[in-house]
């Protein structure tokens, strides 16, 4: 009996080992089904493996992959990294025997990290389909590492109906003074109106990026503009010229909000749901919210970060992208070709590009479908009226995770006690922290 038991145990162990050693490719954080996962069987036809970093686009991408398989017969595997884990997932996946052939390199940090694993896209068929090179990312040697596949904008989303209900007009929202007057009035009368000015400004990881990644862009952008040219690499230091402007807008948001500033540190409030439910007139966020917001507020629009900078009546929205495709230079030639073919098809096929545009917002390609996103339309309208576009200088944040974490911590202390000393700490984290992270990154 013991012998049989021992034999069974030995067989179980052997089977377990065989299972461990098999070539099953399991995505660590896939949020959707895979349309196809088989690598090129013959060695002649390549396949595509797209490591996506936008969880909200996963369904659309699975649909596109399925469509491509139906139309062209080529396998496209789409794996989506769980929210906030793209860097970890990419590192793990790239080390596997079947690494992603298509992945996202969306900012200066990523270009430095992944340039060695990215194909130079200069003059390639997909690069020739672009209608602008504004969203392309190059490394220090001038290699085109990644190209934008969609662009986005962020600012302050507004519910015009609530502004009017509060006795104001959208025309008042042309600068910081106007925004402040409207927001403070709504907040003061929140109990009678039944809604407040700003939705919650939580500082947990699901929300803090709105302030430490996006709103802080105004500090960088205006400095960049003062420099006279667009940044092409991360500056070693920052000036504090526009920190007070950030404070103006930040204070307005947290002090005229549904949630008390002292209750923001660990989050737990759903700013999007609050805005959609008509509980707040303003919502700090971006164009990717259009789909969700337009379900209940079809006429929602977006205004720039008015923060008290001179001449800001001519400010536009913050436009840019972190959605840039890179093709794995270490993939086989067949897979690289298959990936290139897939991308060209995606931005030219009417059906596929419709699905992609509806999910992403807008795609900067000559033959892609037009966007239906009203927030992006608002960005275009500002630009058409001669307003300046605030580009995403925030993409150059050095040591982005540590930098933002320090800023969040300083803002938490400030939210709990809005003293001058605590604001000094925020300033230190924002300005001196940049220099420290730059040094750590480049040292």
């Amino acid at each position, binding site marked *: 009996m013991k012998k049989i038991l021992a034999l069974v145990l*030995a067989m179980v*162990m052997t089977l377990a080992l065989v299972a461990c050693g098999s070539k099953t490719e399991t995505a660590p954080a896939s949020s959707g089904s895979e349309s196809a996962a088989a690598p090129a069987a013959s060695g002649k036809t390549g396949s595509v493996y797209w490591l996506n970093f936008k969880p909200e686009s996963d369904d659309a991408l699975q649909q596109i992959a399925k469509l491509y398989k139906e139309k062209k017969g080529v396998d496209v595997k789409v794996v989506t990294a769980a929210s906030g884990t793209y860097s970890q997932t990419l*590192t793990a996946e790239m080390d596997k025997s079947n690494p992603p052939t298509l992945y996202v390199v969306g900012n200066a940090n990523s270009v430095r990290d992944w340039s*060695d*694993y990215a194909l130079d896209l200069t003059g390639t068929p997909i690069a020739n389909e672009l209608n602008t090179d504004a969203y392309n990312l190059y490394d220090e040697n001038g290699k085109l590492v990644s190209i934008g596949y969609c662009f986005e904008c962020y600012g302050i989303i507004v519910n015009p109906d609530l502004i009017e209900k509060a006795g104001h007009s959208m025309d008042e929202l042309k600068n910081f003074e106007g925004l402040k007057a409207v927001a403070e009035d709504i907040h003061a009368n929140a109990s009678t109106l039944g809604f407040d000015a700003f939705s919650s400004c939580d500082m947990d990881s699901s929300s803090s990026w709105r302030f430490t990644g996006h709103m802080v862009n105004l500090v960088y952008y205006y400095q960049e503009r003062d420099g006279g040219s667009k940044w092409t690499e991360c500056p070693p230091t920052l000036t504090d010229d526009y920190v007070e402007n950030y404070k103006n807008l930040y204070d307005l948001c947290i002090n005229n909000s549904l949630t008390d500033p002292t209750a923001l540190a660990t989050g737990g409030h759903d700013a999007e749901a609050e805005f959609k439910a008509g509980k707040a007139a303003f919502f700090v966020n971006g164009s990717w919210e259009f789909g969700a917001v337009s379900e209940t507020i079809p006429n929602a629009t977006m205004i720039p970060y008015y923060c008290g900078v001179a001449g800001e009546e001519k400010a536009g929205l913050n436009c840019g992208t972190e959605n840039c495709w890179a093709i794995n230079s270490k993939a086989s030639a067949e897979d690289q070709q298959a990936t290139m073919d897939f991308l060209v098809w995606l931005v030219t096929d009417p059906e596929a590009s419709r699905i992609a545009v509806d999910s992403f917002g807008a795609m900067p390609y000559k033959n892609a479908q037009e966007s239906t996103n009203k927030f992006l339309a608002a960005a275009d309208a500002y630009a058409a009226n001669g307003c300046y576009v605030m580009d995403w200088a925030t993409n150059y944040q*050095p040591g982005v995770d540590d930098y933002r*974490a320090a800023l969040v911590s*300083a803002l938490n202390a400030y939210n709990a006690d809005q003293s001058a000393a605590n604001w000094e700490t925020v300033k230190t984290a924002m300005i001196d*922290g940049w220099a*420290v992270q730059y040094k750590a990154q480049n040292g």
Partner: protein
Amino acid sequence: MRRGGCDRHQVCEKKELVLLSKKISGGNSTRRQTRKWSWLFMGPVVAAFAIGFVWPFIQGIYLSFCKFRLIRDAQFIGFGNYLTALQDQTFRSAFWYTAGFAIVSLVLINVLAFAVAYALTQGIRGSNLYRTVFFMPNLIGGIVLGYIWSMIFDGILHRYGTSIVENQTWGFWGLVILVCWQQIGYMMIIYIAGLQAVPEELHEAAKIDGASKWQTLFKVTIPNVMPSITICTFLSLTNGFKLFDQNLALTGGMPIVIQPDGSSVKTTEMLALNIYSTFYNSNAKYPGVAQAKAVLFFILVAGLGLAQLAYTRKREVQQ
């Protein structure tokens, strides 16, 4: 008779010797057969151990001397990663924080687990139900526990205008409470097993000798449950040092102290979380530094664990 008896005795001896030699030769044959097939039984275990532990461990040590973004492209650079790791202020800070946490949690978990185990072996009604209830938190994952407890703590701390991620002291004690809540039940089970194994005669003897309850506890019970204490202190010490997911979910290293020069230190970051953060730092040289930190971390935990085992084992008594 004597001669005959003697003969019979000699015959008996011879028979016994024959039987013994047969037994021995039979035993050898069984052993030989066992040896012949031992690879079948040992092989999978050895292979699993080699694939799952030995090889990654060796590779990990090698990578600690390398610069790499992907493991397959590692470049040997010597001891540079170790120097960077040892000069890293955040690593030193995480070490002291972890050491403090491990000591406090070690004491609290073991004292409370022993107290609960002692109470539940006194024959009180419903003790089985209590054992189950106390053990259950151990079945919940660390990440889930971290988020649940952050909500509980913040529900209370918000009344006082603060939060678990805004105050280092609250962060420390919050983590201690969480870990105690999770691990006391587990250690309690080990202590109950130890307490139940103490012979009743020893207690009776102590009672007859006129020992008080405290004397019985310290002079009879505790020396006899030293094997359980050895295991529990080893587990809670190493768990304390290795803690990761609860740390990540409860505070994530917050609050961060911003130094006047702009540098920052995560005040509730423990060693494992520090290694993780270092690995995914955007600077390409940091995965190797994180690997070096991990090797130092292994040496530390293994050294402390073995030292503690040697210390407590000396105090175990033989029944």
